[in-house]
Structures are given as C-alpha cells and as structure tokens.
C-alpha cells in the first residue's frame, strides 16, 4: 500500500506547471478568444516538445509509454491554467482508446500524436458535441454501437458556442463512415477517461480560483481593512479548501484504477468526477461572491476558470449520470460497503 506519487512524477508536474503558468496566461487565453480557431499550433508544438503529447503513447509507437496515473497530475496543471488545447483530451482519452483499438488505426495515429503532428479527440453519446473537432486530425466518434475513426474529410462540423469562450464545441455529421470497432468496452473505457480528465482538470480549476480569490481579497480593502480579513470571507474560502482537499485522493485513485485496469474503474471515476466537480462548482460560487461586483465582470480573470468549471461538471456524463452509476453499485445486494472494502484486497 503506497498512495504517494514518485519523485519523478512530482518533478515532472513541477516543470509542466512552470511552463504552463508562464506560457498560458489569462492574457494569452484572451488573445486566443479573438482568433478563428481559438487554438495555437505554436503552443501545441511547445507541449509536444515537452513530451506531453507522447507521454501516454506506447514506446513502440514513439511515445514515453506512460499511463493515466503518470498523466493525472499534469491534467490538474492543465486545469489550473485552463489550457485551451486538447492535450488532456488527446493524451488521457484518445490515446488509451487508440491503444485499446490497436491495429492499423493505432499504428497510424499514435506515432503522429507522439510526434506532435496530430490532435485526436473523442465524441460519445454522453458528449455528443465534440470539443475541438475543428482542429482534430482524427475524430473517434460513437454512433450507436459503432465507433468511427474520421478525418476532417469524412465529416461536416456544426459549431455550437459555449458560455466558455475557450471551449469550441461541434456537432459532427458523418459523410464517410469508417467503423473501427463495435466493442462497447472500448467506448465505455473512453467515457471513463473523459470523466477522469474532467475530474483532474476540475481540481486544478478549483485551486486556481482559490489562489485568485485569496490574492484579491488580501489586496481589496473595505471598511478600512482587507476584505480577506473578514471571517465570512475566510469561511467561504475555507469551505472550498475543505471540499478540494478531500476530492484529490479520489481522483488519484481513479487514475490508478484506469492505469491498472481495475474492475472498480467505473465507480471510482464516477466518484472522482462527482466530488472534484462539486469542489470546482463550490469554488466558482464562493469565489465570485468574495470578489463582489468585480467577479461579475469580463475583465477580471475569474470567469475564465469559473465558466470552464461549470462546463466540465456537465460534460463526459453529468452529475445524474455518475450518481446513477454510483447508486447502481452501492444499492446492489452484493455491494461491498463499509470499512476495509475501499481497496481491492
């Protein structure tokens, strides 16, 4: 029993955080809002140079052969800066799905991903609007029991604007079908990883909203002192900190379950997504409150992270979907509940 991350994992997290915090600033994000695609090949190139695109790609396909657990702390950092690139989507959702598919499609696309030459995204029925489909070199799209592998030539995209200007969502219509699997387990595996990706980013978003708010309330004065010194403001923030603190371990356990193919993956992921997104939603609610009217403005950066948090909570399965999954498990006759059943013995 060892629930800690390795030195390497923590060091890599640090270096990635340093890069992202310096490169993917709120200013940079606002700039991208004014571009057509809202994405940056230059940034994607930098992420690739850092080895991030290839991190989860098997070594035989030119990647680093790491797994979901190795990537989870990085996904948190991507959430912390609200990274406007499908990196988590590609590395944590698409790559494991391609691995599961194997064969030609994997052999063709995994090396491109590792080389930073391809963004790959996934669209499922729980997620009919596909994020970043417009910049995707490959779209893995569920239709009924079929999973298609489609390039831009095979599809027609219909843009759907999100409240989060950084999120680019598209309805995808198939012009040329290309079924690569009818294996429900592969589709379910993709959904788990999509939900896991949102959970990890939600942790980062919550932390970012806390940091922004602690700084703002320490500097903003009313009644002759920093508003952060008022107990009501402190307790708003403390309540977020408590929720966040207890959402981390469930996300890390879910990543472990994905990396090790545990039979409890589905329930572990649903647990992780529910508590992580709750923490991020509470952060949004309390942080805008302690910002006062400033939090309601476009110019203050808070809403960049708040709107993403709202969106992540409802994509890759909303709260109802994941609660139902949990309920199916805990209300079953053979449910293993209570002390000593948290880890598979």
């Amino acid at each position: 029993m060892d629930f800690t991350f390795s030195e390497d994992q923590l060091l890599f997290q640090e270096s990635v955080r340093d890069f992202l915090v310096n490169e993917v600033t709120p200013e940079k994000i606002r700039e991208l809002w004014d571009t057509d695609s809202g994405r940056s090949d230059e940034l994607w190139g930098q992420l690739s140079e850092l080895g991030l695109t290839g991190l989860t790609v098997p070594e035989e396909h030119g990647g680093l052969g790491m797994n979901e657990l190795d990537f989870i702390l990085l996904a948190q950092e991507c959430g912390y800066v609200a990274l406007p690139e499908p990196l988590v989507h590609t590395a944590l959702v698409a790559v494991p799905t391609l691995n599961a598919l194997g064969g030609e499609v994997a052999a063709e696309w995994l090396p491109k991903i590792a080389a930073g030459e391809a963004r790959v995204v996934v669209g499922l029925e729980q997620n009919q609007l596909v994020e970043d489909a417009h910049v995707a070199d490959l779209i893995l799209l569920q239709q009924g029991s079929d999973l298609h592998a489609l390039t831009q030539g095979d599809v027609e995209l219909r843009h759907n604007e999100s409240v989060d200007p950084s999120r680019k969502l598209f309805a995808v219509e198939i012009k040329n079908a290309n079924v690569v699997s009818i294996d429900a387990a592969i589709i379910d595996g993709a959904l788990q990883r999509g939900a896991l990706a949102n959970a990890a980013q939600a942790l980062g978003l919550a932390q970012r909203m806390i940091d922004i708010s602690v700084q703002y309330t320490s500097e903003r004065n009313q009644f002759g002192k920093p508003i952060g010194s008022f107990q009501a403001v402190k307790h708003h923030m403390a309540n977020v900190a408590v929720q966040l603190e207890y959402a981390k371990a469930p996300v890390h356990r879910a990543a472990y379950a994905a990396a090790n193919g545990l039979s409890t993956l589905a329930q572990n992921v649903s647990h992780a997504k529910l508590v992580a997104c709750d923490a991020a939603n509470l952060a949004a609610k309390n942080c805008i409150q302690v910002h006062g009217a400033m939090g309601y403005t476009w110019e203050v950066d808070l809403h960049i992270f708040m709107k993403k948090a709202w969106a992540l909570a409802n994509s890759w399965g909303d709260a109802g979907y994941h609660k139902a999954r949990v309920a199916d498990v805990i209300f079953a006759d053979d449910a293993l509940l209570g002390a000593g059943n948290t880890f598979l013995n």
Partner: protein
Amino acid sequence: MDLAYTDDQKAFREEVRSWLAANVPAEPLQSFDTEEGFQQHRDWEAKLNEGRWGMVTWPEELGGRACDLIQWLIFEEEYYRACAPLRVNQNGIFLLGPTLMEYGTDEQKARILPKMANREEVWAQGWSEPNAGSDMAAIRSKAELKGDVYVINGQKTWSTRAVWADWCFGMFRTDPESERHRGLTFILVPLDSPGITVRPIPQLDGLPGFAEIFFDNVEVSVDNRLGGEGEGWAVAMATAGFERGLMLRSPARFQETARRLVELYRENQTSADQDPAVKEAVIRAYLDAESYCLTTYQTACRINSGGKIGAESSTNKIFWSELDQNMHAAAMSILGARAELLPHAPDAAGVGTWLDGWLFSQSGPIYAGTNEIQRNIIAERMLGMPR
C-alpha cells in the same frame, strides 16, 4: 385576515391582463444592454406610458394610477405572466421617482418626472465608487459649490444602464472635511455634460450592463440637488428603502421562474431523476417562491394598513437572491451537457434563456449590498447581537 381578492382587485387584474395581451410585443426584445435593444425598451416604456401602465404606483396627475402595494403586486404578476419586457428605466421610475416625490421641489418634479415617465430621459444610478462598494459611506467623489453650479470631480462605478442612459443620480462629497455618512449630497447629473466620460464595463455575458462614470470638472446646476446640501445619506437611504426594493424584486419574477423550472423538470424527468438532488431542488423552488410571495403579501398588507417595516427587510435580499441562484442551478443540472450552450447555438434545443438567467443570478447575492453585509445587518439590527 381575508385572503381573497376584492372585486376591484380582480377587475384591476383583468384590465392589466387584457391590455398586456393586446400590447406586449410578440417577439422578445433584444437585451437592453445592447444599443438597439436599449432603444426597443425605451420605445416600450413609451407605449406603457401611453396606456398609463408605466408607473401604476405614481399619482394620477403624474400619469400613474395611485396603486397601492397589493395592486402593484397584481400588476407585476400579470406583467411577468405576459413575459413583458424588462423595465429599462427602473432606476428612474422605481428608485428616483418616489424619492423625488418625497424630497424634490415642485420645480424639480415638474421638470424631471414627466420626461422620466414618457421615456425621454432614462436614468442610471451612480451609487458605488471603486473604493466604496459594500462600504458606501467611503464615497470620495467631490462636488464643490461655485456660485449656482456644483463642480464635480471623481469616479462612479457599477452604474447600471449608464452606457446609454441620459441622466444619473448619486451621492457626492460636498464637504471636503467630512467623513463617512456626513457631508454627502444627492445630485442629479446629465450624462451629456462636458467633462463626463462613460466607460462601459462588460459583464459575465460580455455585454456592457454597467459602466464607470468619470467626472472631470463637470458643472451641474444647483437646481439638480435633491434634498439639502449634506443630507445626501438620508435621501439615499429612502431611495434604497424596502418599498423600492419590493418594486424591483416582486415575487412574480421568481414564481414564474419556478413554474418554468417545474416544466423543464417534467420535460426531462427521466434524465433529471438520475440525480435525486434535482427533484429536491425543484420542490424547494416551488415552496420558496410561494413563501416569498406569501411573505411579501403579508408585509405589503401590513404597510398598507400603516405598519412599519424594520430590519427584517434585510432578510428579503438574501432570500430572493439565493432562491434565484438555486433555481437556475437546478435548471443547469437538468440541462446537463446542453447547459453551457448559448441560446442561438444550433444544437441548443430546449435550453431557453436558462443560461442568461444563471449568469444574471450570480449577481443577486452581490449587488445592492452583498449578502454578507445583509447578514451583518440582520444579526446586529434585527437580532440585536453585539457589533
């Protein structure tokens, strides 16, 4: 106690209902935080005024109907049922208007109220300043009396409607030596005065719902002072009083949201019931909206029969703002993956205006005195806890 409407009240409701049915635009107007939408809403105010429905609580000689609070509540119920447009001049009609009647000179009333009524002049409020938000007594913008004009310098912010409005009202420090609540004067300022710069502030939805107003040696005739010099705080408190608040936050608004929430839930019941918290929230929404309506009627009746309203009015702000936020949060949960879509998105079927409402509901617990300030007031003034 008699909880039936009188025949007069029923007749009044019928009259309102039929006029609205005949006159409310079939197509919803654009947001009044856009230039075109602002004009559309200005025109609607003119139409309301023609039918004498613009300010039903105003005296008849001013184009009103001298309605009491119960009639006002009935009017609002019908107004929200009819999905009639938002009131672009509410700062004028509901906040400044009644205050003018109380503190204004006859000259001021004659000069200002008619144009406010016939929508010629739309009003913005200028309460807050960058360092005077929750702490409104920290106002620093100065007004110096030189001859028969005030020379104003300083800055206001969070000034709703100011981008396209014609006038604004607010408090300015006329005694440079004064501190806190003293030495403030209530002044009305034409927004086209030389020396005024209005900087729009885009809000969460990207539209300029409020603005900053910069004053650089702006000269305003002393005729535009409301109440005496240095008496601004008293005038402002009257302006922010409970009846005014009631004007702005009539229960009908929240009851209609609750009704739409019940509909949304029923339309999506199968998926919604996967999350038991949703059904709980929908039931609560209905109960709380009803509680808000019942409590408002009880308070209105007490006021009608000469009663006074005390610090418990601070409970009002907290109750409706949290109710509004909870109802919209529940709608977001029901909409699930669709919740984040803008209404015009091609695949946004059934999302209606919930997202806009959700964004707007975020401001409820903040503006007009944060809910934290309201809780302090309740604890100290209503419950008598130590400061």
